[in-house]
């Protein structure tokens, strides 16, 4: 039960971003690999994904702390543990979650050299960096931090819920080169983001009074679409779901990919995916807070008037720290991702039945290296992977990966793909070294799906 609560809490409170699917990448000729690189080679005549089950992936990850750091049962109080976590994290630590569910997917061979694939998937995608100064201020107050500068520039997050309709083409140019591209239409049902904030809050010993407080050069921007309609928050989950089916704010994106066979055993592949944006026009609610304010206390004037000092303070604050709202449209860029891999095949040479009623030779073993990077709001993030892939038969494949990324230096992932008749199942689990204690893990990731494959 606790594990379910853990995942539930993280999904609800976390901020999600795109996921590295290093095991799935170029694995067993699965059609889902075309979403990671439309230029990968497939050997299919056509395929149909089992609706809602052809591709499910989920990842929860954090840097700087784990769930166990806060909720573990030991002699220390949770207040102490939160205090420890706040002291240990820094503003580049983050919490992210990514889930993707393929609603449907299919593909067919257009001709001997061309494979067309298309589908629709839902994605929840977000990231939130730790605003350490703000969290410390809320948790401890400012009394023990005289002269400390609390910065609001650390407030940086992005959350997207969207549906993606896509269609792609994979074209074999010659025996060495395969090129691919995919066109995507995004339908965003919810976008929340805050970036490019700046400004500071300080409390110092003063001259005119014992203390002086300053809000210096504050500039905070909060943008939202899909959250507020007619000045009322949308609470109906069905509305969010409905808007992902082309009912939300629309955008477009492109994927590009290629595979190049340097020799029969050595291949290079690479892709750039989600190069695109969403143009948010509907149900926009943006808030901007800007200004500077200095407070040295309330100064009594000993005159005959009965001034309302509190009201004057409120008025002065509102005049100097302006909070404005607008409904202006804005563009939100999708997080572009880069994949690159080099793969060397070896071992026993086998043949498999091909879509063109020929037999294609393949090697039972392969190893190689992959590089993944995603463009994030604060900075690019990288993951390096070494892998070994084994085909036990032309129906049963396995892959083991070792990944070094922001979360771990010993991330071992495993994947298996099996086909019985026309039914294919694949399952992938990442970071298996942490399965013995997922509460202490910084990263949990899994993918699985069912397809009908026709060669």
């Amino acid at each position, binding site marked *: 039960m*606790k594990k379910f609560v*853990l995942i539930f809490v993280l999904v609800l409170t976390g901020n999600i971003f795109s996921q590295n699917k290093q095991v799935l990448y170029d694995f067993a000729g699965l059609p889902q690999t075309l979403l990671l690189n439309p230029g990968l080679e497939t050997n299919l005549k056509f395929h149909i994904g089992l609706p809602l089950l052809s591709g499910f992936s989920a990842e929860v990850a954090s840097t700087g702390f784990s*769930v*166990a750091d806060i909720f*573990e049962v030991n002699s220390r109080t949770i207040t102490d543990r939160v205090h420890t976590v706040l002291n240990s994290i820094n503003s580049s630590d983050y919490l992210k979650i990514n889930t993707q569910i393929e609603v449907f997917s299919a593909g067919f061979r257009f001709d001997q050299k061309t494979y067309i694939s298309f589908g629709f998937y839902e994605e929840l995608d977000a990231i939130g960096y730790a605003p350490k100064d703000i969290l410390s201020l809320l948790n401890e*107050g*400012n009394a023990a931090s005289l002269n400390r500068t609390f910065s609001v520039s650390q407030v940086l997050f992005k959350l997207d819920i969207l549906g993606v309709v896509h269609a792609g083409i994979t074209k074999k140019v010659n025996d060495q080169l395969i090129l691919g591209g995919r066109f995507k239409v995004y339908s965003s049902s919810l976008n929340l983001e805050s970036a490019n904030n700046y400004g500071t809050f300080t409390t110092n010993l003063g001259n005119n009074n014992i203390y002086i407080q300053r809000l210096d050069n504050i500039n905070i921007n909060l943008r939202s679409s899909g959250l507020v309609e007619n000045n009322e928050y949308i609470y109906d989950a069905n509305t969010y779901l409905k808007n992902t089916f082309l009912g939300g704010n629309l955008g477009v994106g492109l994927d590009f990919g290629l595979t190049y066979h340097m020799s029969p055993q050595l291949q290079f592949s690479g892709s750039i995916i989600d190069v695109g944006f969403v143009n948010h026009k509907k149900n926009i609610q943006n808030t901007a807070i800007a200004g500077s304010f200095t407070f040295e*206390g309330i100064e009594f004037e000993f005159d005959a008037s009965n001034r309302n*000092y509190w009201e004057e303070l409120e008025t002065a604050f509102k005049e100097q720290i302006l909070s404005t709202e607008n409904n202006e449209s804005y563009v939100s860029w999708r997080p572009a991702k880069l994949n690159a891999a080099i793969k060397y095949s070896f071992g026993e040479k086998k043949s498999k039945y091909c879509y063109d009623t020929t037999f294609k030779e393949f090697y039972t073993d392969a190893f190689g290296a992959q590089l993944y990077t995603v463009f994030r709001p604060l900075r690019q993030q990288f993951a390096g992977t070494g892998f070994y892939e084994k085909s036990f038969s032309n129906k049963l494949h396995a892959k083991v990966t070792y990944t070094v990324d922001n979360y771990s230096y010993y991330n071992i992932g495993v994947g298996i793909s099996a086909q019985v008749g026309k039914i294919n199942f694949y399952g992938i689990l990442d970071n298996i070294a942490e399965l013995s204690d997922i509460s202490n893990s910084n990263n949990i990731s899994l993918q699985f799906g069912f397809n009908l494959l026709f060669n």
Partner: protein
Amino acid sequence: MIKTSKMLRVILSTILFFSCARPLDFDQLNQYSPNQLVTIPFIIFTINATDFETPISPALIPSIVKKLDFKIFEGTFLKESLVQLEFDFEIKNDINRNFILEIIFREADFDVSNPLTDGREVHRLTLNVTASSQDFTENVFITKADFPDIINFLRVEMKLTLQDDTFPIDSIDTGELKFKSGLTVYFKGA
């Protein structure tokens, strides 16, 4: 659709079943009680000796009163979380007279249109400021445990009185009295 969701649940349950997690207790969130100490500048004023005279004739005004709405504790959450108020006072008195400074915490809002409507007094601090005192400092704690009524204050009244009002201030009594204050509020999460 039902079969699909069942299958999804079975797969997720299987993965979670074979994984492990050390004992976690999310109910601990109810025990989360951070100690927040918030420091703010409070009231300042400078008063001249001549302020104790009427503009019409040099008749003595025995005391001067100023009032301030203080609405920080309007919300229930802060009232419940309040543990203690700590006041720091610094006074520099150039006037060669003793003063009594009373800081009265009242319950009701200050009514600008009717300044005679004083709210119920919930607490009072009294500072005795000696004549020509250049470095008067005082640190006062008001804890909710000892003075539970303190959470109800929504207005501060400052009353400055000549300790001996039988002798009016005259032209010999020059100078000014400078008052500075800071407030540190101790909160503890429920």
